[in-house]
Structures are given as structure tokens and as C-alpha cells.
């Protein structure tokens, strides 16, 4: 979820004189139209929530499907010959990797990680990798880390394979691309939570379901970037290859694929990061490993234990991210002296030696005496925080007081207002907003998605979730723009911020939940708070990039005209960074929704709660309807905030 920003650059909006005047015209037209419809609607349709006559009750049929699956799972050929094998294949391969990792022992795995990082990304990252793995071991999390790693390896391989096949098809065939692209774009913005229910329905709780959910979640960026990379291959090079008489296969393997290496590696990077974040969330459906430790710790309000499992996740994320990113940066650089093959041979030999030495000297398991327990000190610190910051702090009030005020003054009015609005007015509002920012097509999608929510009979909970999203987005944007602008104007602030943002962007969403509960109590306010913390880094980053991306010549010319710093910001930077800011809004909305939904675990209620409830009670009808509503809400929010993208002329 976190990495999507860099992959979706927004083209600048039309700024020419006539276009602008047309746009102004359009706004007036839109508002007039909306007003007319408002009057018509209130006369003809009347007030109220989504009418019951327009809903479809899916509980019955979905419940039947769920029952049918459970009753026939042991006998039906579809399961015996397809899903069963799929599930067994997953179990078998995860187990294989897990056994290899255990056999290599902590020394072997750490050495392998360090040496691979050294070959791919250089010495500094090699050190980082080694330290990261050792910290995982010191925290007593070696075995869960290996479980998560084994699951990740299989999930990433499958995602990359699936993504590459889809991407290849879409990259080489216009028709496939036209069909696939909107699907992939949409999957990219879906909250992770929504993916869990369908796989559980088929596979039941366990590792196969977790791996498959992860694959479905992590394959789209690979497919998307593969397709884009293949399609964007330098036409001149491709023509040169053709002019030399290359066959289709030769053109693909010697030119088109190598030319897309940067995109392929970026795809790999995003896939790995998304797989990791999903592997953690999938602990809810039995993924095991580090995510499960976090989940178990959350169940007993044990922030320390949650952190002990959360830190390895973050370290794993940082190492994987940096190494794959560094591999991308190194492309096109001069080949290093010395044979690459020799280097890899050294790396492989080093791994084997480390594993064997450690095995003969000690056992393959991490020695018990070398672990450090951070649980207690962390819990003491958290306890102190709750004791002293929760309420009754003079002047500013405690965090619980803030949460209460936020709920009463912001969340409640927004929710009440949304639920008070007649259903058709909500649709109208969405249509107008979508038209103001996007196109007819985005408007249509958004309105249809919202209407579908009504048809599913989850109108009120959806509006409740929506109110939390809106409040969360508002806070995120205010804070994010402020910090982002500050960072773009001071390189020192940016330097300070960068590592913080990096870490925050790779943190599992789960870990945010417990401290916010400790600080803000239970309810919608902490859910929104967790969402804000989660979405903030992306918004800050996009804002900073957008502001820094403003043409320095323009800045210089405005300075030469004697503009003050503030004038520059207001008159030059902000307007020019508009596309980036719109993208930040879009990303903010998508990320806030993802966590607000998970907020169902801490009293966020509404759709997220229904999804959790569906999982927890095995009531898949409720869960699936809620999941579908989450998807639709995500679709609607994404489309409403999606700035018009000018498509490039060539190709599709």
C-alpha cells in the first residue's frame, strides 16, 4: 500500500487560458445542475437513508455458499483436484523453504543475507542486513522470523510469477492491457483487509489462505509495472532490434525485457513490500510467524511483546526494501571490476562455511542466553505514558480528553450529517465532486460504487466509516502538508524526517493500534488516530517531492522579481505542485481507509467491525458483504479524488 505513490505520477492538469476558462465554466454548470437536481430530488424522492426496497439481502445465499463449501470440501472434485492441490502445494513449498532456513541456522541465514546484500547493493547494506537479522535473533524472534520469511519467499515468488505472466500478456497485447489495467489500478487501492474473506471462504483459516491472500494482494504491482515497462520500451531500440532481423522471441528477451529492467525491479520491490505488509495482516487468518506474535500480543494488551515482534518486521522491511531499491539504482552503472560470477561463488561459499561452522561449534538455533527481553521496559514506559498523559493533564488536557472531544465535535457531527443527508443527495454530492476533479467516467464509477453499497444494505455503516475516513483525511492532510512544506523548505528537516518516514511506511498497520488504544482509549477516535499516523508519511513524502519538483528556474525568476519566501510558496510552489498535492490527497484517502477499516479491532465499528466479525464468527455472509462494501467505498473514494490523468498518445 505504501509504495504506490511513486508508481503513479500524475500528469499536470491543463493550464492553458481557454482550458481554464472552460473549467470555470464547467464548475458553474455543474453547480447549477446539482442545485436543480437537489430541488427536483427533494420534491420527487423525499428524505431518508437508502430505501429498503432497493436493497438485496445476500445473507441467505452467501450463508448457503459458505455452508455448501464446508459440507462439500472433503468430497467435491473441485476441492479434491484443484483447491486441495493448490493448498498442498503451498504448504509443501512453504515447508520446504522453512526447513532450509532452519537447517542453515541463524549463522547461515545471516551470512547469506549479508552476502546477497553485499553482491546486490554494496557493503553498507550488507552490514545493515547482518545487524537486522542478528537483532531479530536477539529479540528472541528467530523462529517466527523464519516462518514469516518462508511464507514471504513463496508468496513473493508466486506473486512475481503471476505478476510477470499477467504483465507480459498486458505488455504485449493491447487488448489484454485494456482489460487488465483498470483492474490492476483498482486492486492497488483496495484495503488489505478486504482480501482476507474470500480466500478464507475457500481455503479455511491457515497458511494456504494467508499465502494466497498475500499473492492476490502483492501481484498487481508486479503485473502493472511489468506491463508498463514493456510498453514503454524505447521504440528506437526496438526498431533497431527489428532492423537486425530479430525474431519476436529475440526482441522480447534481448531487448524488450532488459529495457524494462528498472520497472521490473521496482515491481519486485513493491511486491515484496506489499507481501510483507499482507503477511502480517494475514495473521488474522492463520499466517503464523511474526504477524501472529503481534496479533497474540495485541490480544493481551502487551505493547512490549507486540513491539518485540514488530521490530523484526520493520527490520525485514527496511532490509528488503533497501536491497531491492539499491539493485535498481545500480542498473546502467559501469560493471564492477572482477567477474560477477566469482563474487557470487564467494557469497555462496561464505554462506555454506558460516552455516557449517556455526553448526559444528554450536547448534543451529539461536542460543537462549543471547536473547534480550524488551517487553518489560517497553511496557513500563507505556504504562507511564498512560498514567501521566491519559487525562487530567493541566491546561492541554489528557489524550483521552482529546479523543472524547474529537469524537463529539468532529466525528459525531460529520457522521450525523452524512446519515441525515438523503441518499440521493449523497450520490449527487459524490457525482459533483468526482466531476470537479475527474472525468465523466470516474464520476460514473464512483456513483455506481456508492449505489452498490446501498443495494448491499450497508448504507449506514458505510457512511459511518466514511465519516471516519473524512475526518482522518482532513487531519492527515493538514498535518501532512504542513510537515511536507516544512521539509521541502529546509533540507535539515528533510534529512531528519527521511529515516523516520522510511520506518513508518514499512511498519505493519497492526502495531499502530495498541499505542493508540493506550493513549486514546477505545472507539472511533483511536481508529482515526492510527489511520492518520499510517497515512501521514506518504502524504508528507509526496508533498515534499511535489514541492521540490517545482522547476528551479521558475523559483529563481520569482525570486528575481522580489517575491518573499511566503509569496513564493503561495504564488509559485503551491500552484505548480498542485498535481502532487492532488496525488497526496488521493493516497491519503486510500491509506486512511485501509487503517480505519482495521480500526474495527479497536472500536472503530461500522464496516471494519463487520469484516472482523465475519472472520471471527465464521459468519462469512456478514464479512463478505462488509468486505465488498469496503472495496466499493475504496473504489468510490479513489475515483472521487483521482485527478484526470492525461494519457500518453502512443499505444493504447
Amino acid at each position, binding site marked *: 500500500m505504501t509504495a504506490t505513490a511513486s508508481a503513479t505520477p500524475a500528469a499536470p492538469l491543463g493550464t492553458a487560458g481557454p482550458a481554464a476558462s472552460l473549467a470555470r465554466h464547467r464548475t458553474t454548470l455543474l453547480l447549477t445542475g446539482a442545485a436543480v437536481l437537489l430541488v427536483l430530488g427533494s420534491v420527487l424522492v423525499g428524505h431518508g437513508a437508502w430505501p429498503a426496497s432497493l436493497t438485496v439481502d445476500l445473507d441467505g445465499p452467501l450463508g448457503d455458499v459458505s455452508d455448501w463449501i464446508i459440507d462439500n470440501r472433503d468430497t467435491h472434485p473441485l476441492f479434491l483436484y484443484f483447491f486441495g492441490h493448490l493448498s498442498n502445494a503451498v504448504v509443501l513449498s512453504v515447508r520446504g523453504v522453512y526447513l532450509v532456513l532452519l537447517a542453515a541456522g541463524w549463522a547461515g541465514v545471516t551470512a547469506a543475507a549479508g552476502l546477497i546484500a553485499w553482491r546486490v547493493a554494496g557493503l553498507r547494506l550488507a552490514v545493515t542486513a547482518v545487524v537486522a537479522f542478528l537483532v531479530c535473533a536477539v529479540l528472541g524472534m528467530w523462529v517466527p522470523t523464519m516462518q514469516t520469511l518462508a511464507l514471504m519467499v513463496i508468496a513473493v515468488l508466486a506473486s512475481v510469477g503471476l505478476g510477470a505472466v499477467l504483465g507480459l500478456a498486458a505488455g504485449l497485447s493491447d487488448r489484454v492491457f485494456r482489460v487488465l489495467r483498470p483492474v490492476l489500478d483498482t486492486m492497488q487501492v483496495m484495503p488489505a483487509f478486504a482480501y482476507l474473506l474470500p480466500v478464507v471462504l475457500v481455503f479455511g483459516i491457515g497458511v494456504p489462505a494467508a499465502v494466497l491472500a498475500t499473492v492476490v494482494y502483492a501481484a498487481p504491482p508486479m503485473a502493472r509495472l511489468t506491463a508498463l515497462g514493456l510498453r514503454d520500451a*524505447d521504440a*528506437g*531500440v*526496438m*526498431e*533497431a*532490434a*527489428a*532492423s*537486425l*532481423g*530479430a*525474431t519476436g522471441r*529475440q526482441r522480447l528477451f*534481448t*531487448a524488450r525485457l*532488459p*529495457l524494462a*529492467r528498472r520497472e521490473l525491479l521496482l515491481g519486485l520491490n513493491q511486491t515484496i513490500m506489499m507481501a510483507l505488509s499482507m503477511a502480517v495482516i494475514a495473521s488474522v487468518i492463520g499466517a503464523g510467524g511474526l504477524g501472529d506474535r503481534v496479533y497474540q500480543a495485541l490480544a493481551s494488551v502487551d505493547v512490549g511483546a507486540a513491539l518485540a515482534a514488530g521490530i523484526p518486521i520493520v527490520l525485514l522491511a527496511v532490509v528488503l526494501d533497501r536491497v531491492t531499491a539499491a539493485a535498481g539504482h545500480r*542498473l*546502467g*552503472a*559501469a*560493471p564492477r571490476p572482477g567477474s560477477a560470477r566469482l563474487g557470487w561463488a564467494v557469497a555462496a561459499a561464505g554462506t555454506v562455511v558460516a552455516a557449517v561452522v556455526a553448526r559444528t561449534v554450536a547448534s543451529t538455533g539461536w542460543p537462549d542466553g543471547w536473547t534480550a527481553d524488551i517487553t518489560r521496559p517497553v511496557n513500563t514506559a507505556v504504562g507511564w505514558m498512560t498514567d501521566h498523559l491519559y487525562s487530567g493533564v493541566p491546561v492541554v488536557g489528557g489524550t483521552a480528553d482529546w479523543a472524547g472531544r474529537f469524537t463529539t465535535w468532529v466525528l459525531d457531527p460529520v457522521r450525523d450529517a452524512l446519515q441525515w443527508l438523503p441518499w440521493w443527495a449523497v450520490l449527487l454530492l459524490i457525482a459533483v465532486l468526482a466531476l470537479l476533479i475527474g472525468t465523466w467516467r470516474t464520476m460514473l464509477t464512483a456513483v455506481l460504487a456508492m449505489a452498490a453499497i446501498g443495494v448491499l444494505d450497508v448504507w449506514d455503516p458505510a457512511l459511518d466509516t466514511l465519516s471516519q475516513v473524512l475526518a482522518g483525511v482532513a487531519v492527515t492532510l493538514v498535518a501532512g502538508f504542513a510537515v511536507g512544506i516544512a521539509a521541502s523548505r529546509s533540507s535539515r528537516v528533510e534529512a531528519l524526517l527521511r529515516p523516520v518516514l522510511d520506518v513508518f511506511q514499512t511498519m505493519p498497520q497492526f502495531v499502530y493500534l495498541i499505542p493508540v488504544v493506550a493513549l486514546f482509549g477505545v472507539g472511533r477516535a483511536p481508529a482515526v488516530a492510527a489511520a492518520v499516523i499510517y497515512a501521514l508519511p506518504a502524504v508528507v513524502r509526496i508533498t515534499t517531492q511535489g514541492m521540490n519538483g517545482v522547476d528551479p528556474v521558475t523559483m529563481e525568476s520569482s525570486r528575481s522579481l522580489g517575491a518573499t519566501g511566503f509569496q513564493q510558496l503561495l504564488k509559485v510552489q503551491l500552484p505548480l505542485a498542485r498535481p502532487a498535492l492532488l496525488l497526496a490527497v488521493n493516497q491519503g484517502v486510500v491509506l486512511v481507509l485501509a487503517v480505519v477499516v482495521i480500526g474495527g479491532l479497536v472500536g472503530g465499528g461500522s464496516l471494519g467491525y463487520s469484516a472482523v466479525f465475519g472472520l471471527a464468527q465464521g459468519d462469512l455472509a456478514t464479512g463478505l458483504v462488509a468486505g465488498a462494501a469496503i472495496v466499493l467505498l475504496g473504489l468510490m473514494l479513489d475515483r472521487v479524488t483521482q485527478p484526470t490523468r492525461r494519457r500518453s498518445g502512443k499505444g493504447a
Partner: protein
Amino acid sequence: MNTPPHVFSVRDLWKVFGPKADRVPGDAELGALDAAELRARTGCTAAVRDVSFDVRKGEVFVVMGLSGSGKSTLVRCLTRLIEPTSGEVTMDGEDVLAMNAGRLRELRRHRASMVFQHFGLLPHRSVLDNVAYGLEIQGMGRAERRERAAGVIAKVGLDGLESRRPGQLSGGQQQRVGLARALAVDPEVLLFDEPFSALDPLIRRDMQEEVVRLHREEGRTMVFITHDLNEALKLGDRIALMRDGRIVQLGTPEEIVGSPADDYVRDFVRDVPREQVVTVRAAMRPADSAESVSGPALAPDATVSEAIEAVVRTGETARVVEGGRCLGVVDHACLLGVVAGVPAVKEAV
């Protein structure tokens, strides 16, 4: 005259882009429309219109025109990188348009190689492997192709840069790699698509001289596309001048400059230093008896500027001599007439 055999022979070639493009070439009425009208009527653009020419073995055949004149499309039609809409293309008497995919690949692999304006190099490969790329596609073994490539690299003056990546080279060096890649497969014809227009003027001149040198040494047939008249005049044995998809004049540089076919060409060549293009064969007048024995001797294809130098140096009328026979003479008046662009002087004498 003993004409060498034709390498390429092009007849009635059309390339029309757009919906239902193939109805345009056959339709006399549509074919007569200009670009804007055609577009309005059919939504089509005719990049190449009814073009016919021959490329002789061993010559440098230049196609010249401004951007949008259809010259780049034309050269791509020769090896069907762009599929022609209608017409006939033969190479060494073999119908190119009738070739199946395999035969066409053979043509591209062994008989005609192309050098591109934007080089089209593979950024992830070293210079050596880029040059060897064509051989790799032919299926040649690694050691052999690298050896061959190394030889070609030396020929184009890139020694010592074999392991660099294209991104680390200057534009001129990159185009040398492109040239070497085309040469490495030892093709019968080299096709150049505006190869030097992305380069700095000084480097461009070096590269042009490189081409001249290669042609002199190997005598390979070349088809050269350019929008630069000076480049065309400098390199071309014959020049086809294109405008709006048609060839408006085809001839030697001297014919183009000396006798433009229409106002467009005349306008085009107005600023050309004629004395460097026109030969004394075209500038001379019949000699009288005294003149035919004294004065500096010049070959008939010496340029007027060379004649001027000889005349100025000796102060005498220069003789045009071929095989010991005096064909005619050039004096001050003849030569100045060429420089001034007034052909009447010659006829007046």
C-alpha cells in the same frame, strides 16, 4: 553507358497511414489531393506517394527532404520495418514485399543494416556486446561474434571503449557504435536514417568524413537519409529530393544544384555554394585551338572551385582533359557564371 546492376528497385511505392489506407493509392482522385485535403476527406496521411527509383550497386544514394516529407518512412519501407501500402520493392531482383517472415529476417540479418538517428543502442550492454548484437541475433557463437565485433570497433575508431556502456559515451561515440553494429554483419547495403542530425556540427563533420572514408575503402552501397542539404551534396552520388511524400527531383548533386527541376528545388538550393558542387564538365565551353594546348589541365569531374583555384594561380584559361583529349575550357567568365548562378553566360559564348 554501362550502368551497374540495381541493388534496390522501387516502383510506384505508396505508404498511407490511417483508416482503410489501401483505397488511396489506387484512386486517382484521392491521390491528387494535397495532404490537408486528403486528411479531411479520408482521415489518412500519405507519407510516401507514388515513389519510384533505383539504387545502383556501390553508390551512395541520398534521400533528402524536410521533416515530414516522408523520407524516413521511405527508407523503412525498403526492409519493411514499415509495411508499404502498395507498390513494388525489389532487392537484387527479389520481390521484398512477397517475402515471408523468415526470408525477410534473412534480408535484415545479412543484406541490409540500418543506422538510426537516435542510435537505438541497448543501454544494459557494453559497447562490444552492442556491436555484436546483430551477430548474436544471427545465432553466431559468443567467442566468434565478439572477435568479429572487436575488429569492427577498431575500424570505426572506438578502441579502448569496448567495455563501456552506451550511457557513458558521447553522442558521436554512440553513433560510431551504431555504425559498427550495422557494419559488423557485413551487409550488402547500409541504410542511414538521419544518423548525424542529433550530433554537434563538428562531430557531424567528422562522422561524415568517416562515412566517406568507409565508402571509399569498401565501396559498399549506402542509402542515406538526411534533411541537411550540405550533407546530401557532400555524400551523395545521387540525390532524391522529397517533398510531401513525392520525389520532386532525382539526380546528381550537380544536376540538382545546376538545374533545379522546379521552384521548390531552386529555392532549396539557392544558398548552396555552387562552385563546390558544379563540375567543370558542366561549366566548360568549347575550346578554340590556342586554348586547347596551354593552361592548367583539369579532370572533367573537378569542381568549379578547384578550377577557380587553378585559373587564379596560373592566370590562364584551364583545360578540361579526359584521356589526353581536351574536352573544353573554363575561363573567368564561365566560372563566375557558375558562382553567380547565371547559366546564360555559358550559352552566350
